[in-house]
């Protein structure tokens, strides 16, 4: 390893601001035999116009033919900017140095036709990438643009539809597809052009976990079956790490380190880097626990279990049986304690359609954080819209502080009681800057009392307070659409919080956020909870709910199938549980998060 490091640094030693970049890459192999590099980035620097700081700083690495390369790093570290450089039409404006070679040829010298054909690029949002109204037309779009003959397009389209399993929805309108199907269609329509390299920019951030896993499975299959080179950025590293040949970690526009996933684990552990937060759970646990023997960093849950077996043997920790908790144990709550109660709610969208919500009962304690988990399309979002009075159940009622939700006036309900954070924060943004956006919520910047603002506090004081709570300082003069996903989410939350809700309802707030933003978001929620706000959220994100919620519920078949504290809720489940629990359940059935497992391992009381 040190040899290769020396070699790499020698190559780049001319750069004065080059910091401790560790190339763990096995460069001997890459330079002599083995497949040649398909894409080579040579000392790339880039700064957006009118910005001092470079978005990309002396980036150089190679991608070998047929390789599966994962690019990861905190949001805003320059991943997306880097990926956009690999396709000329997408390259942002700004000052640029260095070059990118594709197959030994400078990217700018390639014709547009050659680029669109050989470099496939899948973007983040499944909906926005689709151009036409029919699935088959979308598949053919790229080939049409390149001027292929009908007969050839017919063959290619047929091929793609068969390979990706699209036959069943080949004739459908794209509007009828689910998010996962849409993203798969995007992938298929890119693959129809037979690209040599496939670049994917956080392709699963808008998908639910099952669709995301399917999608990444297909990407892996393409890499394995067709030998297409893959360059991928991702937040769900659990899924992609086992398949990755190499990982490049970026930080602040620079390459922090690169190497195989195992090497990355070792390296980050050595540096004790905060990037670990984003790594797969087994790697997180590995990083926190020191063992006497040197063992390779586990990537998957399976590896993690083996590793844990070895550690437990060494520490002489014996397996432990899981206790069964009466999950649905109904504790009697005092009436004053209940802020929200749903009684026997039945709902369907249409008279002829099946029930979506079937006899739902739910009560929320004042000041608790309740997370409702469940599969896609089970009716979680519908439940949320019933609670927020957007939809009316045909039987049953919703009580807020003991009073029927229908008897609240609009003002009483939405100003000072319920706060609803929509799934897409963009659907709340009206103004040009973040600051105006916040003042818009309290009826303008003028310090005049009006019906939209009734607090005794001065407006700017209120806004300032919220800005502090939601960490929006420094972003006040940006355009809301220029913020990153996590920042947009926080701005939307800030807007809702200006209404001073007692009960905050959220629809998948962690969708598309990376682990730092999630952590930050959780801290904000914690602060709100301390001020007495009750939080109800629906989510797919098991790890997030396990770490931060007070109570979790599983929504299934129109009802809450089970609920309990995260520990009792997840500890008994075999499949529907966190990765940490799946890994460590044999020894520590009650450990639900990575932190729990690490703590249990470091706790010496059970060592014999």
């Amino acid at each position: 390893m040190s040899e290769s490091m020396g070699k790499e640094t020698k190559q780049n030693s001319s750069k004065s601001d080059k910091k401790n970049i560790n190339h763990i890459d096995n460069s001997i192999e890459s330079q002599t035999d083995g497949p040649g590099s398909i894409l080579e980035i040579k000392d790339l620097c880039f700064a957006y116009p009118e910005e001092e700081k470079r978005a990309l700083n002396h980036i150089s690495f190679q991608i070998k033919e047929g390789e599966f390369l994962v690019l990861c790093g905190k949001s805003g570290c320059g991943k997306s900017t880097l990926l956009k450089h690999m396709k000329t039409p997408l390259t942002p404006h700004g000052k640029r140095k260095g070059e990118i070679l594709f197959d030994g040829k400078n990217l700018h010298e390639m014709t547009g036709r050659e680029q669109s054909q050989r470099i496939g690029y899948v973007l983040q949002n499944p909906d926005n990438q689709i151009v036409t109204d029919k699935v088959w037309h979308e598949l053919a779009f790229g080939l049409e643009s390149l001027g292929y003959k009908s007969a050839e397009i017919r063959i290619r389209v047929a091929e793609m539809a068969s390979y990706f399993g699209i036959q069943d929805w080949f004739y459908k309108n794209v509007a009828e597809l689910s998010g996962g199907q849409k993203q798969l269609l995007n992938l298929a329509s890119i693959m129809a052009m037979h690209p040599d390299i496939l670049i994917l920019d956080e392709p699963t951030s808008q998908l639910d976990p099952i669709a995301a896993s399917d999608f990444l499975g297909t990407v892996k299959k393409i890499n394995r079956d067709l030998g297409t080179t893959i360059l991928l950025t991702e937040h769900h590293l659990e899924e992609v790490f086992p398949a990755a040949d190499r990982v490049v970690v970026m930080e602040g526009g620079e390459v922090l380190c690169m190497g195989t996933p195992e090497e990355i684990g070792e390296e980050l552990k050595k540096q004790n880097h905060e990037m670990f937060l984003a790594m797969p759970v087994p790697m997180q646990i590995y990083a926190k626990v020191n063992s006497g023997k040197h063992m390779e960093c586990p990537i998957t849950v399976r590896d993690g279990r083996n590793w844990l077996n070895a550690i437990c043997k060494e520490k002489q920790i014996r397996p432990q049986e899981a206790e069964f908790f009466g999950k649905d144990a109904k504790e009697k709550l005092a009436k004053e304690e209940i802020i929200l109660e749903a009684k026997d709610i039945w709902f369907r969208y249409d008279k002829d359609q099946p029930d979506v919500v079937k006899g739902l009962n739910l009560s929320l304690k004042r000041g608790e954080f309740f997370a409702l988990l469940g599969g896609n399309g089970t009716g979680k979002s519908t439940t949320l819209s019933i609670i927020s009075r957007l939809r009316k159940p045909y039987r049953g009622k919703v009580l807020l502080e003991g009073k029927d939700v229908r008897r609240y006036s609009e003002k009483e309900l939405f100003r000072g009681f319920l706060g609803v954070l929509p799934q897409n924060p963009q659907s709340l943004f009206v103004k040009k800057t973040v600051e105006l956006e916040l003042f818009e919520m309290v009826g303008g910047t003028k310090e005049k009392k009006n019906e939209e603002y009734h607090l005794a506090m001065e407006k700017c004081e209120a806004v300032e307070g919220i800005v502090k709570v939601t960490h929006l300082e420094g972003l006040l003069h940006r355009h809301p659409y220029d913020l990153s996903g996590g920042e947009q989410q926080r701005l939307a939350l800030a807007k809702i919080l200006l209404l001073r809700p007692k009960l905050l309802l959220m629809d998948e707030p962690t969708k598309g956020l990376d682990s730092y933003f999630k952590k930050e978001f959780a801290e904000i929620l914690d602060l709100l909870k301390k001020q007495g706000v009750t939080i109800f959220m629906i989510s797919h994100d098991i790890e997030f709910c396990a770490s931060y919620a007070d109570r979790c519920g599983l929504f299934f078949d129109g009802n809450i199938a089970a609920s309990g504290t995260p520990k009792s809720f997840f500890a008994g489940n075999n499949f529907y549980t966190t990765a940490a629990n799946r890994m460590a359940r044999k020894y520590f059935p009650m450990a639900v998060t990575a932190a729990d497992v690490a703590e249990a391992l470091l706790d010496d009381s059970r060592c014999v």
Partner: protein
Amino acid sequence: MKDTFSTYHPLLNMLYFVGVIGVTVFVVHPVILAISLFGGIAYSVLLKGWKKTVKFNLIFSIPMMLIVALMNPMFNHYGVTIIGYLHNGNPFTLESCVYGLVMAMMLVCTMIWFSCYTIVMTSDKFIYLFGKIIPALSLVLSMCLRFVPKFIREAGVISDGQKCIGRSTENGSLVKRAKHGITIFSILVTWALENAIETSDSMKCRGYGEKGRTAFSLYRFDKRDILCLLFMGASFALTLFGFSKGYTFCQYNPKIIVKGIPLTAGSLLVYLAFLLFSVLPVVLELWDRYQWKQRRKQVEKAEQANYRLWEVQD
């Protein structure tokens, strides 16, 4: 369920409707209109079923027919056969009465044929045909059809979001509701423009803008289409030939002259040719259904034979 004629090449579908609606609109001969009405109703029953066809005709066609039939003699006073005088002194003539009836029938026929047209000529087919003429237009149409449902759905999402911060368009004063409506629209437009950038990126990534774009379609022109086209061509040509010869000449002003009643050899030719043309889709569908039945019977027979054989062996 798709009917047989819809599965033919879009060009045939289009030509057929142009032909049949063209004749209906331009030929005011009562027998021709009756044939067209018969064909139209039969096809609409096949496509939509009895219930919907009857409902459509009761709700739209018959009131329409009455209005047009009554309006014409009220405002037109040509013709030589005067039945009486209106209260303002204008003559009420037989010719204008009859012409009103004919017009009404023509309108109903056209409406029925158009109702079939909207079912058979789906957006794909339309886009395909126009793509042949103007390639850029077909993509624009397809993108519109993609965009409109997306836009409407997003409008719902945004309106829900606004409702949840107490800004609904459903209650409050009119000014306030209008204000909230404008806010929703403004968010929607920003959202659409912002997201369109990504769509354009995606198009550029897939080589849009390169020279020599082709238009792909799933439709193939095969032997069946050629045969059908030949038949359509022949029957339509015969009809037109008859028209040009004046076998079915008719006029309503100033005097009613309707040739072809009673039947002559020439007019019979025209009627038959047009009848064949206008019932073509119905016949195709019925023939198809008949064949299916026959095949099914054969299968049943074969099964029975097997069963007996098995019984004997036992």
